[in-house]
């Protein structure tokens, strides 16, 4: 991307806002600040923007595609010369104080230069495949590619492991425009900026840590985010929700608070999982009109206006709602089907019910817990979420706590104002 980069030492630079993270929160903060008229540098560690939202099949409660809102936001980015997007970029170090930060960035090699036209010839010629992170490893992808339909920028990237191989060198000749550069190296740069918005989002909680639920050990126990990819027609199974043996699905269970609201795992509530599972019952219903669906829950948390969505889902007579946190999942070896075991809190009845597929509604782990802000003086809560401080480094979205899309957009719009206030202060 031939984007103007504000490498700054002049006046203009001191007003520049750095946004870290190109998911819905970061994207929103960047466009909202830029549309006020501020220069913004948006850095994203992946080769493309979109974050978790790009992986979702549909949004609750409208059951519409997230790509629609993403496209509008990409339009806003494309049309706004004030936004500089740096992909594959990570923040190494932040020094200074509100109004005057020096930030060291590292841009990891894409191994495909700016000449790339996304024509796809390299991918066609490439035999090597790697795990598809976008699809949570449910499939393999070519070692060079553009990620997915809504990848922005639409420019290919090569897996760093593959770039080291002789096969990668062979692709150099394949590319009609000379865009393949397996020897590309990381670049470091330094920016001067006035304020920083930290929007590094979340990672689905590692379900295998919830040992009693046997994820990874018991066949056909999956997670909510994997269901999003499976249900997506451009996903690994072409939109089909599938068992590992391809057998028909007649009976699906969703287990809420899989890892959340639990001192052994994530003590907080991840906020979105109730609504996400309700939404996913519609995926199941669409594909398997006669399927039985069970939701095991502690409390149903369809906050404020989402209540209407809960009512809509409750109208599906094929859904059984069981107030219970299942004790464990056993495997029925013969049928390769999981058996959910526990006690119904409302009836006191113990159950051991076999399902064709069990979906663990896993929660949100803040990315910031593993990669904190590389600056001194930051405050984090007990779970590693960033305190929404009033200094020039402002957290937003799931970097500060579990959020849904609407809440992330709300918080990120607010974060844009805080960043602008910092710039105003710096201006005096």
């Amino acid at each position, binding site marked *: *991307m*031939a984007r103007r980069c504000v490498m700054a030492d002049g006046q203009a630079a001191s007003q520049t806002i750095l946004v870290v993270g190109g998911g819905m929160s970061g994207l929103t903060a960047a466009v*909202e600040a830029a*549309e*006020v008229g501020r220069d913004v540098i948006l850095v994203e560690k992946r080769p493309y923007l979109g974050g978790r939202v790009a992986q979702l099949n549909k*949004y609750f*409660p*409208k*059951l*519409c*595609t997230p*790509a*629609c809102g993403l*496209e*509008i936001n*990409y*339009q*806003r980015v*494309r*049309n*706004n*010369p004030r936004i500089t997007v740096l992909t594959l970029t990570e923040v190494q170090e932040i020094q200074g104080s509100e109004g005057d930060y020096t930030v060291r960035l590292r841009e990891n090699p894409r191994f495909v230069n700016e*000449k790339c*036209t*996304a024509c796809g010839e390299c991918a066609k010629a490439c035999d090597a495949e790697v795990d598809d992170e976008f699809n949570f490893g449910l499939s393999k992808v070519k070692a060079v590619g553009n990620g997915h*339909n809504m990848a922005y920028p639409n420019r290919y990237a090569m897996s760093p492991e593959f770039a080291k191989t002789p096969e990668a060198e062979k692709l150099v000749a394949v590319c009609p*425009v000379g865009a393949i550069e397996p020897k590309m190296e990381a670049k470091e740069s330094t920016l001067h900026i006035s304020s920083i918005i930290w929007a590094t989002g979340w990672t689905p909680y590692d379900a295998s840590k919830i040992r009693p639920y046997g994820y990874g050990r018991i066949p056909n126990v999956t997670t909510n985010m994997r269901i999003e990819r499976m249900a997506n027609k*451009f996903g690994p199974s072409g939109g089909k929700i599938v068992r590992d043996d391809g057998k028909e699905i007649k009976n699906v269970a969703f287990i809420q608070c899989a890892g959340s609201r639990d001192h052994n795992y994530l*003590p*907080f*509530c991840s*906020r979105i999982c109730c609504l996400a599972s309700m939404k996913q019952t519609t995926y199941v219903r669409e594909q398997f009109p006669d399927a039985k669906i069970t939701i095991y829950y502690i*409390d*149903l948390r369809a*906050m*404020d*206006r989402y*209540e*209407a969505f809960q009512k809509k889902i409750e109208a599906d007579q094929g859904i059984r709602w069981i107030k219970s946190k299942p004790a464990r999942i056993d495997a029925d070896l013969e049928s390769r089907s999981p058996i959910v075991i526990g006690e119904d809190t409302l*009836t006191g009845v113990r159950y051991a019910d076999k399902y064709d597929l069990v979906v663990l509604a896993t929660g949100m782990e803040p990315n910031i817990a593993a990669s904190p802000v590389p600056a001194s003086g930051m*405050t984090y*809560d*007990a*779970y590693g*979420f960033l*305190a929404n401080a009033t200094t020039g480094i402002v957290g937003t979205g799931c970097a*500060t*706590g*579990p959020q849904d*899309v*609407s809440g992330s957009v*709300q918080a*990120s*719009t*607010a974060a844009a*104002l*805080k960043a*602008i*206030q910092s710039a*105003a202060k710096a201006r005096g």
Partner: protein
Amino acid sequence: MEKKIGCYICTGCGINEALNVKTLTATVAKEQKIPLVKNHAMLCSPEGVEMIRNDMTSEGVNTFLIAACSPRVHVETFRFGTPMIERVNLREFAVWGQPDAATDKDAKEDAQALGEDLLRFGCIRVKKMNNPEPFEDPGLSKTILVVGGGYSGMTAAKGAADAGYDVVLVEKAVELGGKVAKMHRLTPANPSLPGKDGLQETGAKALCLAVETHPRIKLYKNARVKQTVGAPGLFDVTIDQAGSDTVERIGSIVVATGYNLYDPNKLGHLGYGASPDVITAWDFEQMAREGRIVRKSDGLPAKRVAFVQCAGSRDKNHLEYCSSTCCTVSMKQALYVIDQYKNEASTCVIYQEIRTPGQLEDFYRKAQNEGVVFVKGDVKQVAANSGGGVKVQVADKLLRGDESMEVDLLVLATGMTPNIDTTDPNVSSNLNLSDEERAKTVLNLDYRQGASLPSLKWGFPDSHYICFPYETRRTGIYVAGPARRPMGAASSATDAMGAALKAIQAVESISRGAAVHPRAGDLSYPSFRKEGCTQCKRCTEECPFGAINEDDKGNPQFNPTRCRRCGTCMGACPQKIISFANYSVDMIGAMIKGCEVPPAEDEKPRILVLACENDAYPALDMAGINRQKLNPYIRVIPVRCLGSVNLVWIADAMSTGYDGVMLLGCRHGDDYQCHFVRGSALAEIRLSKVAETLSRLQLDSARVRLTEINIMDVDRLPGLLDDFVKEVTALGEQPYKPF
């Protein structure tokens, strides 16, 4: 400045192999009479861009026709500091979206015809395009009006003022602070932060002081907005302060009028009225604030307190939504009791579902640890005790039986209703309000479509509450806090900051003459050729944003700064008097007619596709990128919104000899996806009337169809188009084909 067009055809990415570029070039130069046409093997390369830039200096080129790849890529590459640019999507539509030209000769012919038509469209567009003059007015103001001086309003006012903007804050009460100032404590915003797990001071006093003394905030207390006249940047707001009127020039508005408590008198089934000791959470808060948690009946200490959740909320007979804060408010209030009466306190929360999202789960845990008892169940009966207090019967769902408890106070956690007037989402007007009714509205807008903001549901004024939560259907007016959506103080503070940002963004955009979301930055806006107007009022009624008023004679009075530039007015106008500098009925009509339709005997039908540029067009584009084969007979013209589609285009298409017309746009109705709220819905309504026109032309109405698609219908599109082409062809010969 004279327009000088340069057309640049890229021959890379397979364009040269698939298409005869020489003929394409001739189409532009000879047929379309644009003499400056150049080819380049890779137009997006520095050399390609350099070639164009050289022409800017040497040839004075100031209008650009880039025939290369999709307009969704390389926007920054082909940025020449002017909106006078048009992209012709040869690569995605005529190359990648077509069969391999090397192996399929017929396909090559079809692709060539497609490429030529796309270029014709582009040429006509740039020829008809004028440089939009941004709207300017010396009277534009950047002052932000905040209505409501509660927690949200004060936060918004301070937020905008701290960013360097002048703020006018109007509060109806004699003092600032709203409900939060009357609260005892607040629930912690994030109880998982070190040292922040307990009840928090409201901070209202400090916030009031900061607002009162802020040099950029002009305060009207004991005041209300009497009338709002005009448009963003140019609002003249009459403020009535204790009977005396002042007019302020305002740029944009944040409405932060908060919430009302649900009327407890409607909650007799939960015991309200049965005893003075059945009270609302609000009344309880006041007691706690005074430090006297006592029975109302006899003033004795109230040590045993039960809290009933969802009192009026989540109830189809009352408020259907969840009021979002009641669970944590009751926990907070139970902690007041424990704080006052220590070991003697006995508190119980009777609930349906405990809703403590995110880190608030720690606050729930704290309440449990401090001894608050939680009972999942329904209140079955409430009766006054002869000795004071009340007896409550609860059907306990966990213990599976009825339970009777005697408490000193039964506190109903009543829900919240938005304290703002709205118009029904399905009715475009509340014009018929009496002056008295108008005076009661929060803003009393002088909009032809009504004095209030339109609501989406349940009286909450918004339009896209997932993706773009601040967008109302009135440009430059944003709603924050519980007037927008049920929320507590912490969330309201964030919300207010966000709304203040949007308000700032609106005044800054308007000062540049630019549109706000979703066509942010667009400098064009419609002009009205008034002498042609027949006062039919379609434009004034249909504008999704109420941008157009009417004078006494019914003439449209357009307000550029209210406009979102969707073109719905242009689509509505039967007289074709509404145009943008770079988008008009005439321009699109000419493009439609510019297609070279083959004679019937060639058996090559032509289908016009008018595609919403936000969703349908990207879907078509992605189909091309994915090398799905797009029917070669379709001719795509992107439109700003289906709302901008004027029916005359259908007639234009038919008289030109197209076999059919397909409108591709967003889902409408409930859960609409139209970025302009009503555009695709209006297109559907208009289309229902097109049959008449078609029958006059002796054409089957099946030749015109509106199909709802979303941006991810990439896989479905090619089949959809093929089917339509087949169906239309089956209708027989289109009689208006050229010979």
